[in-house]
């Protein structure tokens, strides 16, 4: 390749570009789909037995995120579907790259009927919702539950399950699992050393001192994904200042990140950085590496969601007995009790608005949300579902049993935030980077909150990002 070649090629490309640009307007973005109307969709007759109007012979295409939960659970749900509709043919596939695999099909107007939009390759929900790419699941909520008599699907769900998947009052995303976020420790380690989980922050710091003196690092965290540490920090702030702290952050209110509660929480958490209570080198570990160091007993505490137990299944020593606990209270002035814990629906499922078999997709969700479907899921993957009480009678592994206990203790004091669903970039990029600086000790609490606020402001000012308001 020499210079003349390059120039010649550029010139040729330039010549081509002029007339072709107009033609190409209809290429990548101009794909079909908008004027087909209802012609290509499947609809059955609604009846008491078939409240969603499923066409019983319509094929159903399902795409599952092949992550921590695998795909076997989904196949079981699909089998329940074909049991009900023997004439329906189900096209099942599983991938880890949801956005790359499905993006062209959304543009083309031929998306699958059910998408488990999860994992690192998840499609940003803000973009999907603002382009009206997801079907309204309202009908599903109003439909009667499959095997819990006298209740609609909505009545069978845990509190908060509908809120998390709602955008501007429309229920668009069915989050299937129920995840508790907290601080984890090994019961075995704590019993051996006669340590007890501390309920207040001062006691927590005293315990950290004791743990460090015993030659174990009190904390470790996923330094390459430091947003894991934003969870306990924000939780501390919400317990101190009440749920309005979360609402302000979710609604991108000015200076929401610099509220007094956030300041108090950041100051408190700075202590573990200052006093070097974090395992050395944590800032260079990814989530798996840090969780493994924790399982090996190199650190006492780690922040994670309730998927931790199944994620660590292969490396957890026998008898480790991981337990989840709420974040310690800052003091007696806290608005929420110590037991209050962040619980939220996770693992999003959706039906694309242009899916051919929308009713079939909703019906599959109804099967998943039946007691039978939910119990099968909990048995298969050791995770709770959003179906209230569905884990009763199922034998749970140690860690998950502590999750249920924490959830019961928390009761109506449970809290949550959703800014990470509304504005994926804010948590994944901006708060994440700030947490990395803060928990490695490169910046202090004030700068940390400044950096988070700057990120939130940049989202608020970006007119190309659709904004949502949280109802409560």
């Amino acid at each position: 390749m020499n210079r003349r070649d390059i120039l010649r090629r550029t010139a040729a490309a330039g010549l081509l570009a002029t007339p072709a640009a107009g033609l190409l307007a209809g290429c990548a973005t101009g794909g079909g789909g908008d004027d087909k109307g209802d012609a290509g969709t499947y609809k059955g007759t609604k009846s008491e037995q078939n409240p969603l109007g499923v066409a019983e012979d319509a094929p159903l295409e399902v795409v599952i995120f092949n992550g921590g939960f695998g795909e076997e659970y989904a196949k079981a749900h699909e089998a329940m579907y074909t049991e009900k509709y023997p004439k329906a043919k189900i096209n099942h596939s599983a991938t880890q790259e949801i956005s790359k695999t499905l993006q062209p099909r959304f543009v083309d107007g031929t998306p699958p009927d059910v998408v488990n939009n999860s994992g690192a390759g998840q499609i940003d929900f803000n973009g999907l919702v603002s382009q009206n790419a997801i079907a309204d699941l309202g009908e599903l909520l109003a439909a009667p539950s499959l095997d819990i008599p006298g209740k609609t699907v909505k009545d069978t769900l845990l509190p908060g399950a509908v809120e998390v998947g709602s955008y501007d009052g429309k229920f668009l995303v069915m989050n299937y699992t129920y995840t508790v976020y907290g601080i984890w420790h090994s019961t075995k380690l704590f019993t051996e050393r006669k340590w007890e989980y501390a309920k207040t922050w001062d006691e927590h710091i005293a315990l950290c001192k004791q743990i460090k003196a015993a030659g174990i690092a009190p904390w470790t965290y996923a330094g390459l994904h430091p947003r894991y540490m934003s969870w306990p920090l924000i939780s501390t702030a919400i317990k101190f200042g009440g749920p309005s702290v979360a609402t302000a952050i979710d609604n991108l209110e000015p200076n929401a990140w610099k509220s007094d509660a956030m300041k108090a929480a950041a100051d408190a958490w700075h202590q573990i950085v200052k006093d070097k209570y974090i395992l050395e080198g944590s800032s260079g570990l990814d989530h798996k590496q840090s969780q493994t160091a924790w399982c090996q007993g190199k650190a006492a505490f780690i922040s994670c969601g309730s998927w931790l137990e199944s994620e660590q299944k292969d490396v957890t020593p026998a008898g480790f007995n991981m337990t989840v606990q709420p974040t310690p209270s800052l003091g007696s002035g806290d608005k929420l009790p110590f037991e209050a814990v962040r619980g939220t629906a996770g693992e999003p499922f959706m039906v694309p608005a242009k899916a051919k078999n929308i009713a079939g997709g909703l019906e599959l969700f109804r099967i998943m949300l039946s007691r039978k479907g939910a119990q099968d899921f909990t048995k298969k993957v050791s995770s709770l579902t959003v179906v209230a009480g569905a884990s009763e009678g199922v034998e749970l592994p140690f860690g998950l049993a502590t999750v249920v206990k924490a959830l019961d203790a928390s009761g109506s004091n449970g809290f949550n935030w959703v800014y990470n669903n509304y504005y994926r970039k804010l948590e994944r990029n901006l708060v994440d980077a700030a947490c990395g600086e803060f928990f490695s000790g490169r910046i202090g609490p004030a700068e940390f909150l400044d950096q988070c606020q700057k990120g939130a402001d940049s989202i608020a000012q970006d007119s190309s990002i659709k904004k949502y308001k949280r109802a409560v």
Partner: protein
Amino acid sequence: MRHGKYPLIVTFLVPPVLLYVVFVVSPYLQTFQISTTDWLGYSADANSVGMANFKALWNDDYVWNALKNNAILLALVPVLTIVLGLFFAAMLNMGGRKGRAGVSGVRGSSFYRTVYFFPQVLSVVIIALLWKEVYHPNKGLLTSALNGVGLSAPTWLGDPKTAFWCVLAVMIWSNVGFYVVLFGAAMSAIPKEIYEAVMLDGASRLTTLWKVTIPLLWDTVQVAWVYLAIFALDGFILVQLMTNGGPNFSTDVIGVRMYDTAFGSETKFGYASAIGVVMFFLTLTVAVLALRVSKRDRIEYS
């Protein structure tokens, strides 16, 4: 047979040109068109917004930060890779003390040749994961080695001060092997008589390398320069797998920014296309400049 020429040419030329147009030219042109829209990637609707994406780009600190990192890569990766590549190739081909006229390699040169080429055999993904473990802050090779001799080690990829240089080192490590082979092949094409003449004149090995070998290799170096410059403007795979731009955007490059904008934390395909267009012109400019700056008279020896 004159009239038979064109069907032949057409048969051989049309399929590759068609493929090139469909898979290379047309996506480029579409990117230009999409970059002037606000397309969000998951519907068929896009509104034309003119140059708004490019204006936003101009004010986007994260893009500038990524470009700054690319600029550093551009300044260092080609130079260091070529210098190392030339040095190793010279040692392998003419570094030995024995042998006539200094034109044999150091002892065990065939062994080294294989070793240098190892990284080239591995896929980039493997290289990234391999080095991620080498840089493991607690039990990685580097930390263990430093701790072994009583030194404290940084957290490598976990520290904005070191992460960028760690990635840069891997870029050079993974590239040098190929250029050792490339330069080596070019060196063996240089007639031995030239070296014999130089030896008779009493030139040292360094002088030989500097005054004879490199000038004769200049064409090859030039090609290496362009390839490496283009590589330095990309660097996407290594960065995405090793650090994904972190910590605190210290290893971010323009390719990662583009990917993240479309497939990562947002779905702004219009804006990402605008980044792609900027990348296209930057790469083109750099390639042209690299060729122009390194332009010299061609030396023929036949």
